[in-house]
């Protein structure tokens, strides 16, 4: 029984670390326009590094047919765009100050982040 309890607690620790504490790797977007694939419930890449004070272009390529994937929202930037299936939609990101800007679908099932820093 003790073993089972310890295992359960370890599992909880793992969940906390995996989803909340771990810092995922970022993808740089300084040199080329970046393509975000929308497939299987995630954005790939989901963490995008952008240089500050410079506008950039993200191309969203939606493969996922699920209605969740239909929109992508950048709440702080007041950007929302519908993503057609199996097509590329380009979204222009205005110059941003350093910081983190989330983007997600309407339901927040798909989540990603723009990380703006030097």
């Amino acid at each position: 029984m003790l073993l089972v309890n310890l295992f359960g607690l370890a599992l909880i620790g793992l969940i906390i670390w995996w989803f909340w504490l771990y810092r995922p790797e970022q993808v740089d977007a300084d040199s080329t326009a970046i393509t975000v694939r929308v497939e299987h419930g995630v954005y790939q890449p989901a963490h995008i590094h952008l240089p500050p004070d410079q506008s950039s272009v993200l191309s969203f390529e939606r493969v996922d047919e699920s209605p969740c994937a239909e929109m992508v929202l950048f709440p702080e930037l007041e950007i929302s765009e519908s993503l057609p299936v199996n097509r590329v939609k380009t979204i222009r990101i205005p110059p941003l100050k350093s910081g983190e800007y989330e983007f997600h679908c309407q339901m927040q099932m798909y989540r990603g982040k723009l990380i703006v820093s030097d």
Partner: protein
Amino acid sequence: MNPEINSPNASSPVKARTDPIHELIIEGAGCASCVGKIEKALKQVRGVENADMNFAQRTVTVTGNADTAGLIAAVEGAGYNARQLGGGANDDELEQKEKADWAYYKRLMREMAIALSLGIPLMIYSLVVGEMTVATTVERLVWLVVGLLTLGVMVFSGKHFYIGAWKSLKNHSANMDTLIALGTGAAWLYSMVVIMAPSLLPEMARHVYFEATAMIIGLINLGLALELKARGRTSAAIKRLVGLQAKTARVVRDGHELDIAIEQVLKDDVVRVRPGEKLPVDGEVLEGHSAIDESMLTGEPMPVEKARGDEVAAGTLNKNGTLLFRATRVGKDTALAQIINMVKRAQNSKPPIGRLADVISAYFVPAIMIIAVLSALAWLNFGPAPAVAFAVVSATTVLIIACPCALGLATPMSVMVGVGKAAEAGVLIRNGEALQTASKITAMVLDKTGTITQGSPKVTDIIVLEQEADAPEESAILRWAASLEAGSEHPLALAIVDSAKSRGLSLDKVTGFNAIAGHGIEGRVGKRALLFGNDKLMAQRDIDIQPHIGTIQALAAEAKTPMYLAVNQKLLAIIAVSDPLKPDSVTAINRLKQAGVRVVMLTGDNQATARAVAARAGISEFVAEVLPQDKANKVIELQQQGEIVGMTGDGINDAPALAQSNVGFAIGTGTDVAIESADITLMRGSLHGLADAIEVSKATLRNVKQNLLGAFIYNAAGVPIAAGVLYPLFGLLLSPVIAGAAMALSSVTVVTNANRLRFFKPQVSNYQSEEV
């Protein structure tokens, strides 16, 4: 309420550009030398002024009047591919979306049918037989076959959940797929352990839960399919607006008339529309006259007469005559395209009330996984026998019922319908925040001129005061006044100039011209030093108007504004100007008052005139003699009294007050939506739009709250019951199948409730909305 920082997106989407800019994405440009080639190719296109390529981003910015298709063709001619950046609303995209949705719908229904055709018989069996136990070897073999069948269902009908769960897990994120995959996976794995190695488990816990796995997968697919259907109806408003766009246009080029696709119409093309046709682009009428039905754009039900020089807008309907007009705005610059864009943006920006749900759903899934583990541990430690089975059931049920989809959908769905609803009534709501604040307005400040009144005053009286021996005639008075005011754009000045023009008077040359802000104007005509303005100006220059106070008061009582003309420091004449009320101002203001909103009128007029106008409009509270710069202060004053202030104005001089108010309402007129400092734009001039906006926003907010409450009950109440808090009291533990059904229904409920908003109608409304 911060006009400048509000729109980082697509440089001011509601502003008509004077100089069209096209942005293209270039594909296949691998080297820096491609840049010159592409720019050169673009500059050769007719109408292009400049082409600038950003090699790092593979984008090119083209200025000039050219159609995008032509630009793309030019780039392709140079050996590269080009696409339009961003792009507006087009039929094509909607059609494609509908097709994709329909294909996905059919797939979900097929998967649902397969899963339920295994799940339902199994469930009936478990209900009839009672316990699905595994005791004998034969039973074990039979269940093994069922287990493999279930695995087939999981692969065929539930593949997308498992792939999605795995991908998002790898990505350190968790979503609905994660929960479903974990829940159904746990139920299936446990059942397989029961079959393969029953000795590991106490005899009482040897149950299989294959029916739960199959049913959950089937029900959730059904839920997704129903949600997809209901969502299609939610975006009806956008679909209707997009549907207003004509597909072709008849243009006159080089003396020939030809029908071309709407995308190919260029600025300055001459376009012909015949009776019964939709206008393809925005323009200015060159020839002909006709009544145009603008109701789809402005909510204004009465057709508007258009003749040479008038502005017309794309999407409106030509009723009876033939018009020839010059295209002034095409493609995504037309008022209609801008409205569509604005509504689209607003539909997806959430009101503050929805943000809490966002924060919750961001942490939800991992939290639920922790709760599931904790509840399993609790059952194992303290639960009755068979504790293992209870632990598995409760953990599975918690995972399944907890999907936060419904919570995430609650706000955007309602806002989408609400903003669309408002747009149908000619009310453009800028974003979710404006929508929420509008529902809380307690005081409405109305600028008088152009808002309550028509904003085009007329000269009503010219009273020559017989003080000078050689008192001039009325026409001379008017001519002098008009000569002074000719350069001014003040509405009262326009009234005087118009009046002089209509009498065929020619204007004199004015020297020593000096405009005194908020007061009037002075200048010399010949030997005469003229001074023309209001009572403040007269007081400032020590000209006594007291002897005529009776006349002045009489004029004021009729809501006429007296203006004074003095020659060589002597008062010579009073010119009275009056600005008639808009025909429906009184009923609209009544609606506001009935809604419990405190109505305050601001005007630069003197006390007496203001009192008279306010009385006619049915407003008891007014502030007269307000200088433009003081309007914002009045708003601040009301805010300090604890009011949530809406400000309505039409002029540029209202911008500071619009920005200061909690919600700024700008009066636009159909074709001119370039009002950036406003949170809400009324597309038709009528004040009914204010009450409509407040009613729609209240209804929407109520709907959002219902949705959030509904979704919250599914989650917040569902999770503890699933974990088993009711078991010690009532012996109640949810079945995973019920959880699956509840989860599938939660999103459907939210979307359906949001759709109820489509039938909402503002209380008094003189527009007929079409159901789509």
